[in-house]
């Protein structure tokens, strides 16, 4: 590697990037817009209680409470419908009463009442709902231990670890911000191929390794600095900053490699933007899962950014340490190696 050559190429790429008004505009606008979006989002959690109810037979005491309007129950036709409503976020808690509840009360047996909680329901909701059900059973039967309660979390159990929506969103914003640079880098490379400047570089003593090293440094540093700056401003580095920064760095390299791949299939700036948006949308999917728990299923694990978002989410929002996220980081590294290598190979073919 010739560091003098790499330095010259990186300086050239930065100059070209920031002399393009469009790239400069999207870079500045990206940071400003995402910061505004973050700060206008609510910083607290809405803890209003909403309960779904499945009850083949509704005990009289439940009917009295419903009619009195003290607690809002929404009644579902089946237990599956109730579970789906809780999973989809329509209710933070759901109560399923057994069909034989009245018979069991009458015979002195303990009916099993199942409670369902959404993945992000606050810890205190669980206590409130369970206490309320026991109180209702007591009112119905006049006995203190008249029911058994079974609680189930639908989706990943984050009970008691709820976080404000904007803190969920900051991860998505940070990743989208650095992904914008992926599109910028892809356009820059496409422009080099389109204008033939890459041919001029390739007949100098500069090696192809130096060229790719310079592109990697330029793309990754541009993305990383923006991502880190954004996370610092929005408080994303207050918990496990080294893990968050390391993950952001890996993410920046991942997106730079993706930029190589995009550039290899693009003919000009417009097509690289088109491909870039497609990749950006796919790569954004895992971060939607962070924003809206339960909306993304296991297939999202096939998307490289799943391991990036999960690492940053766990570290910045739940104070997860290296021991908690090392497998995600390893998988992310494997994805990076494949994508960067694939991008370099594809671009080398294009440069010929």
């Amino acid at each position, binding site marked *: 590697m010739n560091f003098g050559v790499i330095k*010259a190429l990186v300086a*050239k790429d930065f*100059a070209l990037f920031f002399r393009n008004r469009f790239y400069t505009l999207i870079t500045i606008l990206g940071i400003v817009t995402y910061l505004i979006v973050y700060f206008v989002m609510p910083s607290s959690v809405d803890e209003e209680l909403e309960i779904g109810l499945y009850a083949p037979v509704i005990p009289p005491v439940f009917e009295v409470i419903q009619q009195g309007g003290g607690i809002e129950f929404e009644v579902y036709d089946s237990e599956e419908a109730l579970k789906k409503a809780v999973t989809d976020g329509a209710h933070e808690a759901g109560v399923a009463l057994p069909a034989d509840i009245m018979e069991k009360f009458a015979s002195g047996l303990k009916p099993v009442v199942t409670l369902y909680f959404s993945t992000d329901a606050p810890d205190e909701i669980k206590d409130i709902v369970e206490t309320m059900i026991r109180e209702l059973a007591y009112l119905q039967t006049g006995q203190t231990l008249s029911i058994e309660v079974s609680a189930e979390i639908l989706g990943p159990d984050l009970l008691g670890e709820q976080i404000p929506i904007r803190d969920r969103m900051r991860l998505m914003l940070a990743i989208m911000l650095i992904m914008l640079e992926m599109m910028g880098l892809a356009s820059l490379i496409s422009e080099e191929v389109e*204008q033939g400047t890459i041919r*001029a570089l390739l007949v100098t*003593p500069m*090696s192809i390794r130096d060229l790719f090293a310079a592109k990697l440094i330029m793309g990754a540093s541009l993305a990383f600095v923006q991502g880190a700056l954004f996370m610092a401003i929005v408080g994303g580095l207050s918990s496990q900053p080294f893990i968050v920064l390391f993950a952001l760095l890996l993410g920046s390299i991942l997106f730079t490699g993706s930029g190589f791949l995009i550039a290899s299939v693009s003919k000009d700036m417009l097509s690289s933007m088109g491909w870039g948006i497609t990749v950006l949308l796919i790569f954004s999917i895992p971060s939607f899962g962070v924003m809206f728990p339960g909306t993304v299923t296991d297939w999202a694990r096939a998307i490289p950014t799943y391991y990036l978002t999960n690492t940053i989410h766990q570290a910045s929002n739940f104070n997860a340490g290296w021991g908690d996220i090392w497998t995600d980081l390893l998988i992310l590294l494997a994805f990076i190696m494949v994508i960067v290598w694939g991008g370099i190979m594809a671009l080398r073919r294009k440069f010929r």
Partner: protein
Amino acid sequence: MTQDTIVADKLTYHYNDLIAVDHISFSVAKGEILGFLGPNGAGKTTTIKILTGQLKPKGGKVILLGMDVAENIERVQSEIGVCFEDTNLYQRMSALENLDLFARLFGIKSFDAYALLKRVGLAGREKDRVEHYSKGMKQRLMVARSLVSQPQILFLDEPTAGLDPISSEAIRNIILEERKRGATIFLTTHDMMEADKLSDRVAFMNQGKIVALDKPDKLKQKYGKRALKAKVSGKNGALESLEIDLDTPQTPEDIHNLFKKENVVTIHSEEATLEDIFIKITGRGLTE
């Protein structure tokens, strides 16, 4: 004894089924200008790409300055300068920045970009972005960029194509200055006059093969026809054209008879152009 700085030995290249370069061999001596002529698609640019290490030949090999290009690509490329047919400058950078970048890529620490730009007639516009340059200015900057490292071999691909006469002349002068410096120059051009004027030897390329390679004068002698063309006044006063072949035993008598029997209005000698020779050899024009 002259030393060959470019040696191409049975070079072959094909794009799938299309043979672009078909077993061509030639050599260029140090300080020589070789004009490489041929119509579009003849294989000139592919040849330059192979010679400069942009393409690996499918067969044969290239020796530049005694080094096998395939094995010493970086060393070879540090000794060559390439001026491409299409403008491929960094448009959002100034002329000065373009040259400085390439100087750094060549590892040149002390480099006077101003002097080089002055030499190609761009003094006073050094700090202007290239996107604001005219085509002629850009082409002169392309030539300047190829000279940054003071290369031993200069590859110039259509350096004057589409330029105004002043810019073309400026570039031709630089080519001659570079030869004087001792550089070997590989020049492709469509301009027959330019090739004739600048080249020590010319190679005609057609359908991937070199069909002729020699000094322009020798090619003219070998393939051309020298003639005397005259316009004479006819019986009713109309001008008529006459042509006398200069290379036959009958020539002295024909010339004598021309002046004795005809009323000669104009007379001039005519020798074959490189274009005529190319057509004669290949049956097609250079601009086809």
